[in-house]
């Protein structure tokens, strides 16, 4: 067991009486790849929102290593070392692929620090590497708006890789992808394993099997179970709450 990278302690949010996330506690080790599983409305995305600062929590705390980052502003949490990919892919549509990544390569985020030209050889080297890693070499000088859905997802992954945060939160990175695209995505994610601590929300069980080490199952805003793929698939509570419900519908 390595050092703990992310600690979530009794985290919860109360949307005027509706508790979307209710007292979730978990710890994620450095370099670990954790999958968050759960039915629609289980609170997976909300949990990511709480960790990344999009939604302010009403109870509990979040620690990045030893730093309490609970309810910080988003850009401060990002600077502290948490990167996030959204469910609906979001990139800078009017900029080229290369420009997108250059923006992400910027290490000093202040306005005045950036009143200068060029990004430097080191940044350009990283950008070139990432373009290759996510397989967008051909499209490097294309405007992001012209990319296909899958390519847009990979570009957003590329933004995260370039940003190089300690922890990467991925919200359904394979949503809307074909089988081949899903496979390529799992290769990219597997490539990140070990270099970053990764938390993935995912529905696609094929993809989960390709990447998962440990899985945390959420149900109605609470942690239902935690374990490896086999344990989770055998767990009767999980079968009833999540896998089982698939059988009914």
């Amino acid at each position, binding site marked *: 067991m390595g050092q703990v990278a992310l600690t979530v302690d009794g985290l919860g949010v109360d949307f005027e009486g509706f508790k979307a996330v209710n007292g979730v506690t978990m710890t994620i080790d450095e370099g670990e790849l954790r999958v968050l599983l759960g039915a629609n409305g289980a609170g997976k995305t909300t949990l990511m929102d709480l960790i990344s600062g999009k939604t302010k929590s009403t109870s509990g705390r979040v620690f990045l290593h030893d730093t309490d980052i609970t309810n910080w502003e988003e850009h401060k949490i*990002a600077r502290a070392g948490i990167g996030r990919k959204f469910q609906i892919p979001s990139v800078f549509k009017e900029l080229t692929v290369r420009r997108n990544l250059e923006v992400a390569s910027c290490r000093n985020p202040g*306005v005045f620090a950036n009143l200068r030209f060029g990004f430097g050889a080191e940044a350009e080297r990283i950008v070139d590497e990432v373009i290759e890693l996510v397989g967008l070499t051909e499209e490097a000088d294309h405007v992001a708006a012209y990319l296909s859905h899958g390519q847009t997802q990979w570009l957003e992954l590329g933004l995260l890789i370039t940003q190089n945060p300690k922890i990467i939160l991925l919200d359904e990175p394979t949503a809307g992808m074909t089988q081949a695209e899903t496979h390529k995505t799992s290769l990219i994610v597997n490539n990140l394993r070990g270099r970053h601590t990764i938390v993935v929300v995912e529905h696609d069980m094929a993809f989960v099997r390709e990447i998962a080490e440990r899985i945390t199952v959420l149900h109605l805003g609470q942690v239902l179970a935690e374990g490896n793929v086999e344990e989770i698939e055998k767990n009767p509570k999980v079968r009833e709450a999540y896998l089982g419900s698939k059988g009914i519908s």
Partner: protein
Amino acid sequence: MTLTPRRRIDWAIYATFVVLLMILPLVMDAFWLNRAAKYLVYGIVGVAVALSWGYAGILNLGQGLFFGAGAYMLAMSLKLASPTSLQQGSDKPVPDFMLWNAEPGARTELCCITKASFLWLPFQSQWFGVAMGLILPVLLALLLGTIVFRKRISGVFVSIITLALVLLVRLVVIDAQPVTNGFNGLTDLGWFKVAGFEFDPYIVPTYYLVAVSLSLVLIGARLLIDTRAGLILQAVRDDQNRARYLGFDVTAYQTFFFAVSAAITGFAGMLYVIVSEFASPTFMDLSFSITMVVWAAVGGRSSILGACIGAILINTISATVSETEGFAEAWKAIIGLIFVLVVLYLPRGLGGLAHDLVDRVLAWKSRTSPNPTRVGDTSSQLAE
């Protein structure tokens, strides 16, 4: 910074434009030169609108607020420098309209002739007026920007807030007759002086004052958007949230560029006062602010030079058409028609059209040349 072929062409176009500005006095008489100077001032406003609308994604429908602020600040100084201000029965300058609005029995002095006339005291120094012409718009923009952008107000709501604000300030200016001369504005101004030289609006040096200013603003704005901060600003425009989760303080970027746009507009307001010798509340009319947006739309809001040329072009056309017999009544309809046609058929304006042409030439060249150059960096900035 490496110069791609695309960039080299861009700068060549900028250089050509600047050279044209510089040789214009060779072919124009004093009367037209003065008019041209006014249109160049509008060109500066075009740059400011492109910066805020095209690059920051902030559609400001109250740009006139910054223009008016800049104009009034300098006009106050120039009013005190006017010969008539020294003929009001005091040895210190007092604006003539203050006498007409004087409190009964008040001394004829700036300190106390009307209720708030003391505000004019520091404007006896022309350079105080010049400084305030930049500081006031920037302060207004910082204040407005910090509140609006921190609250994550965006899109049409920003437009509505800026629109309401310019109308509000216009009302206040009109209402404060004893200090602002209300509806009439500030007229009968003295000339702008630098080291003893007087900028008579109808002489060539005054034209050059404006032309050089425009050139500097153009090049400065272009360099600014070529910086990293300029690129990040465009990223913020495209997707605020994405930028935020990459660690950028979105509010700071928006506010900074909003303030730069305000400073440029305030500067334009001051130049306008120098060439037209008046400042009036019409600068803060809604129609004027909207006209500015039309200039940028026709010229191309995501092209700094495009928006600038758009402003100059529309004003030249409207002046020529409105003075042509037979069109005297119809010129507004013609301008309206041009606007509608451009929006329908050239949604990225003239700048977008020029950009596509350059792209095509580059693509054609790289096909025909034996040693193909990369048409790289096909600029993101203009594509939609």
